[in-house]
């Protein structure tokens, strides 16, 4: 069994294809969609958690690459620039999943990447702009 959070980026011509259907039907994967959007350039972005057997998961990745999808690890989507963080804590009440949270009694803020669902609310909520997104990341798997 494998459980992975990934981000799919769809070029405009692939947006209409039933990718999720194939992942479930042909590769027997469980799909948990965390977030989906389409940017002004008509590119789609789908964040999801996939689980299933290791071999099916790998075959599904291959198939998606053949379809022209870009696959990015979810963990690399949101970057906490630790040297810019002042540990104020303003983000901790905005982050919906507790990925950004206070450690007490040190009163420092911690970023638990694995809890992040890339909602991007922290990007503008952080006054020091310590949170960054790799929108045009080339970090393909």
């Amino acid at each position, binding site marked *: 069994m494998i459980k992975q959070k990934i981000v799919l980026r769809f070029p405009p011509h692939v947006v209409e294809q039933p990718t999720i259907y194939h992942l479930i039907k042909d590769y027997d994967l469980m799909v948990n969609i965390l977030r989906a959007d389409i940017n002004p350039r008509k590119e789609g972005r789908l964040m999801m958690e996939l689980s299933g057997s290791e071999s099916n998961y790998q075959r599904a990745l291959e198939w998606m690459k053949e379809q022209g999808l870009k696959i990015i690890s979810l963990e690399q989507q949101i970057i906490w620039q630790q040297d810019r963080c002042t540990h*104020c804590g303003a983000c*901790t009440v905005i982050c919906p999943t507790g990925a950004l949270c206070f450690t007490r009694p040190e*009163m420092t803020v911690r970023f638990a990447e694995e809890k992040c669902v890339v909602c991007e609310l922290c990007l503008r*909520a952080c*006054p020091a702009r310590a949170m960054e997104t790799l929108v045009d990341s080339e970090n393909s798997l």
Partner: protein
Amino acid sequence: MKQIRTIEEINEKIRAGKVVVMTAEEVIGLVEEKGVNEAAAAVDVVTTGTFGPMCSSGVFLNLGHPQPRIKINEAYLNGVPAYAGIAAVDIYLGATALPPRDPANRNYPGEFVYGGAHVIEDLVAGKEIRLDASSYGTDCYPLKRIKTSFRLAEINEATLYNPRNAYQNYNVAVNLGQKNIYTYMGILKPNLGNANYSSAGQLSPLFNDPYLKTIGIGTRLFLGGGIGYVAWNGTQHNPSAERGSTGVPNYPAATLALVGDLKQMKPRWLRGLSYLGYGATLQVGVGIPIPILDEGMMSHCAIRDEEIMAPILDYQRAYPYRESGNLGLVSYADLKSGSITVSGKKVPTASLSSYAGAREIAETLKEWISGGDFELTSPAASLPAHDAGISLKPMPQRDPDGQEDQ
């Protein structure tokens, strides 16, 4: 109260490497264990710190004269306007200044990605700053336009002058409305979605000298990672605010105007911030040493978060429209625990001021003093205190032509 040491005696101990310094956090435990008298006898100086957003901050710059000379009457630094209504090449850049083309809140909530505070951070970081200045030209100052760039080290003076810093206490902001609001207290979610505060509490300078007995004009302090001084009382200085039994005010009270040479400060402690929907501001690191001149000062410095209260205020209606609506007082211990109860509802809390930063500043100041790099000053004059009869005035509102109250 009987004096147990003088500032001069403390400075002699600093020079001899024998001074005993503790942070305002460390003395809490010491006083609990040994009592005020013994702690006061043992410790010469207590250091404090705060690292929060302070909008009333800015820097005076003297840019030097170009050839030919110019009398600047409009100046932009990296596109951000500076005030030029003073002598020829002197300007003042305020932390909240925004480029004229910034969309501000026309794209609500505005992002305010780059303002005066960010220019100040870039200046201190030694980055190249673009200057675009213009003038009407005079016989003595003929140049009408200059575009150039400079670094902090290349200009004559850069004096940080902050008209209001180090607030003694501040409001806890909540939102009783139905939708998100974007304030200088951060994003406030509807229906008491969160409560934001902005003070270091027990480490904050003016909570440790609540009656301004040792902090006065000329007090040397940690400012922006370098050395600064108290220039005056801050604007909106309100030392008459109601106090609790420990002597600390329950509401925003005293403030300080601070001054210092920007050239010896550090970008780590002067940070440009962008408050969504509100504007740009500067996060300023301030730390003040409190000389333990008598036992009373030690008991002030031993104040704990449990004993310091702050007022909860609705920023959707009560604050902006100056309506009454105090939602009660809450202690900094409760605020720092992660949630408080407001009108029967459990509300998560967040800070805008960095407690970790405050602690680091108090530690740094302690090292400076213990290491012999920082001596204490006696104030040249006292600041107006609780007995000065000050009360805050609202802006007069009347018809400026008819002189009638509206």
